[in-house]
């Protein structure tokens, strides 16, 4: 085969890859690791760009060497022995390549350690807010702990944090291993039974950042999503104050009837609504259900219709999850939805 045609043959194959690379960089989602919203993710982002640029250069150089090795004019006929001069020259290149490799790795290592230091900078911040996150199959329990137990706010699948203030997450698991990950805010950390792990995050701008459990945890691993809502501090304080309150009393007749339905149903075997007799801890706390953005761990938008669908057929939406199916007659169901919809 004519070696000179090699390049022209290889080029078409390289094109799709390059195209993908370019298109990949152009696309951004609402929860992109390279769209950092805080210093932790920012440090990782910078580290990545360094790694990428250097690696891309290395890749191009190695591929060029490979193509040249195939296409250059080859004069040596002897299979077993290489002339000493040629051997020395090539050996020089190989040794040089290894030397550069070592140098690059050293740079990478130093950059890694520096990035680690930047990320760990807020680990010991005494001003930080502490939030307890408990992983459960397949939702997140969030607790804003307080020295006074009655002021502990419990919610699910939605973490509110103040902008600009470090947040320490205390990570535990109630069943299997999960992993907390919100790409825009930084790296992930596993929630392991028997261990208490910590992760520090900080948001520098307000916004809603999505994330998802990253460690395989069973049937609904795919649908164990979490959102982090970063708010200006005063807005956050107001939210937290409201979360600490017991549930809002029903106002309308429908809501009152709905609470009766709720308390007479099997809902109370798993869920609690603070301020009522429903106090079970095994399912998400519903005290301020209506204030949340999503249902079923980030799977459904929190609307009346979705809530109704979720109650009637949770196994159709998230097969294998822990919530059983229910049927309510219409005259009970609508008041129930009224009531749950009123739990701001």
């Amino acid at each position, binding site marked *: *085969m004519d*070696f000179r045609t090699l390049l022209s043959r290889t080029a078409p194959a390289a094109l*799709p890859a390059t195209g*993908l690379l370019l298109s990949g960089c152009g*696309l951004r*989602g609402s929860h*992109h*690791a390279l769209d950092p919203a805080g210093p932790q993710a920012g*440090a990782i982002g910078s*580290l990545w760009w360094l*790694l990428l640029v250097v*690696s891309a250069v*290395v*890749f191009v150089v*190695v*591929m060029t060497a490979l193509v040249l*090795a*195939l296409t*250059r004019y080859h004069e*040596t006929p002897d*299979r*077993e022995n*290489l002339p000493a001069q040629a051997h020395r020259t*090539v*050996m020089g290149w*190989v040794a040089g390549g*290894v030397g550069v*490799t070592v140098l690059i*790795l050293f740079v990478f*290592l130093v*950059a*890694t350690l520096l990035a*680690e230091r930047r*990320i760990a900078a807020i680990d010991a911040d005494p001003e930080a807010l502490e939030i307890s996150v408990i992983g459960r199959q397949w939702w997140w329990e969030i607790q804003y702990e307080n020295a006074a137990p009655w002021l502990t706010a419990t919610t699910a699948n939605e973490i509110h944090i103040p902008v600009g203030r470090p947040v320490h997450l205390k990570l535990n698991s109630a069943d*299997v*291993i999960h*992993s907390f*990950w919100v*790409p825009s805010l*930084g*790296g*992930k*950390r596993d929630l*392991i*039974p*028997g*261990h208490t792990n910590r992760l520090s995050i900080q948001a520098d701008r307000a916004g809603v950042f999505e994330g*998802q*459990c*990253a*460690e*395989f945890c*069973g*049937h609904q*691993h*795919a*649908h164990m999503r979490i959102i982090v809502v970063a708010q200006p501090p005063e807005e956050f304080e107001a939210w937290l104050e409201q979360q600490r309150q017991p549930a809002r009393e029903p106002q309308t007749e429908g809501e009152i009837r709905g609470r009766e339905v709720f308390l007479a149903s099997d809902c109370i075997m798993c869920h609690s609504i603070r301020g009522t007799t429903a106090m079970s801890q095994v399912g998400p706390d519903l005290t301020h259900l209506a204030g949340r953005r999503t249902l079923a761990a980030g*799977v459904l938008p929190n609307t009346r219709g979705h809530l109704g669908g979720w109650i009637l057929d949770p196994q159709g939406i998230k*097969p*294998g999850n822990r919530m059983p199916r229910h049927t309510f007659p219409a005259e009970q169901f609508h008041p129930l939805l009224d009531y749950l919809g009123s739990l701001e």
Partner: protein
Amino acid sequence: MNPEGPRSAAVLPTAGPRAADARASHHDLDRVWSPPEGLYGWLTTTSHTQIGRRFIVTAFIFFLLGGILAALMRLQLSHAESGFLSPDRYNQIFTMHGVTMMFLFAVPIMEGFGIYLIPLMVGTRNLAFPRLNSFGYFTYLIGGILLYAALLLDIGPDAGWFAYLPLAGPEFSPGHRMDFYAEIITFLEISALVGAVEIIVTVFKLRAPGMTLNRMPLFVWALLVTSFMIVFAMPSVEMASAYLILERLAGTHFFDPAAGGDPMLWQHAFWFFGHPEVYIIFIPATGMVASIVVTFSQRQMFGYPAVILALITTGFVGFGLWVHHMFATGLPSLGMSFFAAASMMIAIPSGIQVFCWIATLWTGRPRLRVPLWFVLGFVFLFVMGGLTGVMLGAVPFNLQVHDTYFVVAHFHYVLIGGAVFPLFGGFYYWFPKMTGRMLNERLGLWNFWLMFIGFNVTFFPMHELGFRGMPRRVYTYLESTGWEPLNLLASCGAAVLAVGVLLFVINVLWSRARGQAAGDNPWGADTLEWTTTSPPPNYNFHFQPVVTDRYPGWTRGPDSPVVVGLKDDAHEVLVTTTLDAVPDHRTTFPPHSIWPFLTAVAVAVIFFGLIFTPWAIPAGAVLAMAMLILWFWPKHHVLHRGHEEDAP
């Protein structure tokens, strides 16, 4: 006889097989070394070429099955919230995909190539411990069949090939699904372990006279290093899966934090095996690459000693990386820095190898045939995967992309790019030796380009999916995530990849019947296996060669020296010294036997039966013991016709 008796081999004044002892007849050798016919022969053979081929074919079938599972996953993931597979099924499928590719495909096929090629490459008649070899194959086959039977019966393991506790434990994986995983993995890896011991002993003790360590082909070096890694890595996963068996079936508390155990113990034990596993798959592939590069550039390996040192270094450092699978578990950061440094350091030996391959091509005269195309594809993909691997060593970056599709992309670049492409190159390269026919070159080029393009279209977008927050092992995703277009693209790429693999299957089936006849050494290769006929006779070499340099395939002629004086009417093999390959003594290999097969069945009874009843242990143990006694019952006299003091 005096054990301290004469240990020197006489040097005869004649040279070459033509002048050699005329009594050594093909006929006698063929009669002695041929396996028996029929089904009984299939179950009893101890021929390394037969068992090696069988390993390769079986592993390739598992590769196709694993590929079908992958295709099912790509179908499911091509659209958001697809209902094609239930989470229950999907979890079994992705678990079995991983188990298949790691345990049933990658390691066995590499060992299969080793079992087939190493005795040929070192110039001997069979692998050391031929019966153990047969036993190893049957444990592998039975284990694989049981796992797939379980999958078809809806009892497929569903907690991931990594089976993290407590999800894989008794509480969260009820039923027998993970019992199958734990039992069969423990059982299956016996095969890898015995294969490794056989290869080590063959390489150390059965090399042809004159094949000193620095004349050994790089493929043999690679398999030697791999085998050592298997010997030290596999026991870790064997023990871990034994703990898992005990945890599930006997109620121990190795992993239960409430009783003093720790789920992290599993992760340490598993990844202490799991990371070396990657190199166990990759190092033999580099051996294949070295063989192909040398042959197709018609130039001895540049930096042969450096490459060997790189292989050995990789083997060692490969054991120091396991924690980089666990950066997200919250281990102390000092330890993590050590493992980060080690993870980056492993790039150095890999870099040395890549540079030496390029230097060999540079100084040689490359002939661009299909095997070399696969090697070029390999270098492209492996360098890419290696670079993302170095990135993953950077702890903070790792925390961002760990357990995402970025990692899925990375390790498919390293494993498919780094092992499957060389493997396909190896298929094209050694197929003529195994069958006597060439694979079709034109189909081969189509095969290569479809696989190469399909692979990149499948896996390159996954890097970006990882950045966008798509975790691994999800059975579906919401449409609002925006992951759909790239997933669809990946699924289309998978289809192209699948067509490429299909072309290979067609090529093999077609060429086996009608391919061009190959001759002994169609590629002008340098290693010893090409000096015998294609396919090799059951006894490999009419006369065992005496090796005088590193490239016997290039330098040997009809007058090259050979070993004479071995009995041609017994399974007699020459044993040489470990370092210098000086003749030491003759040994007689055992004949074909049914007991290895029956022992494998008995051991399978223990492991498989234990899933259902603890009585399987005593029953299976007694059975296995009986089989082993019959297997090892000394009957050295059987083939020693007229041998002194052996008469019963």
